[in-house]
């Protein structure tokens, strides 16, 4: 069974790595990822993202999540978005 989730990059996050979305596999040893695991995984994949991630929000399936909430997990099939500080209006 595939254990993949989609990740979307917007604005400064996308420009930093020149990727707007990718599909990532959850490591074989686990069934889901904490937000700290996710941050570590993304920082390892994209070193240009480290500073941007510090200032960005995460959304899972179009819902903002609290980065400090250790009970929140990214599961297979989720759509995760990196939301840099917004600037609409």
């Amino acid at each position, binding site marked *: 069974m595939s254990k993949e989730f989609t990740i979307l990059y*917007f604005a400064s996050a996308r420009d930093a790595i020149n990727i707007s979305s990718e599909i990532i596999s959850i490591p074989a040893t686990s069934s889901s990822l904490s937000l700290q695991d996710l941050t570590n995984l993304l920082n390892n994949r994209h070193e240009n993202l480290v500073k941007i991630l510090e*200032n960005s929000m995460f*959304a899972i399936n179009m819902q903002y999540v609290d980065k400090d909430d250790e009970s929140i997990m990214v599961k297979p099939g989720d759509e995760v978005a990196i939301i840099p*500080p917004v600037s*609409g209006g």
Partner: protein
Amino acid sequence: MEKTEKDFIKLTSDPLILQDIVDLVKDDQAGAISTFCGTTHKTVVRLEYESYIPMAEKEISSIITDVRSKWELTKVAVHHRLGIVPVGETSVIIAVSSVHRNESLKAVEWLINTLKEKVPIWKKEIYYDGSSWKENTKSKCC
């Protein structure tokens, strides 16, 4: 289904026309229509807006639910432009109707402030010698 007839949300690459959006919120029961227009000022060559569109629509819908719990409103319209917005053109229009003016005036201010904090829309300013992504001062952040 009443809600869908009273709330109007649009993210579009087309120019925003104030009168069209005012017409959306006109109502025989409403004695007041209040509006806010955000316009590109002249310190830049142009602005480029992008959005996480489905989530932005969901967030706008959620802030309209919130604003309706604060004030008694008749109709609410929030239209935001995406893509390239030349200097002098309008990037966002909010229009609210209510029976009396107090509610719609307060609601418009709250809506634009909350939109700027929460809705996943980003503005890139293009200058003659480069560009940069902007951050709203109270933008929702970790």
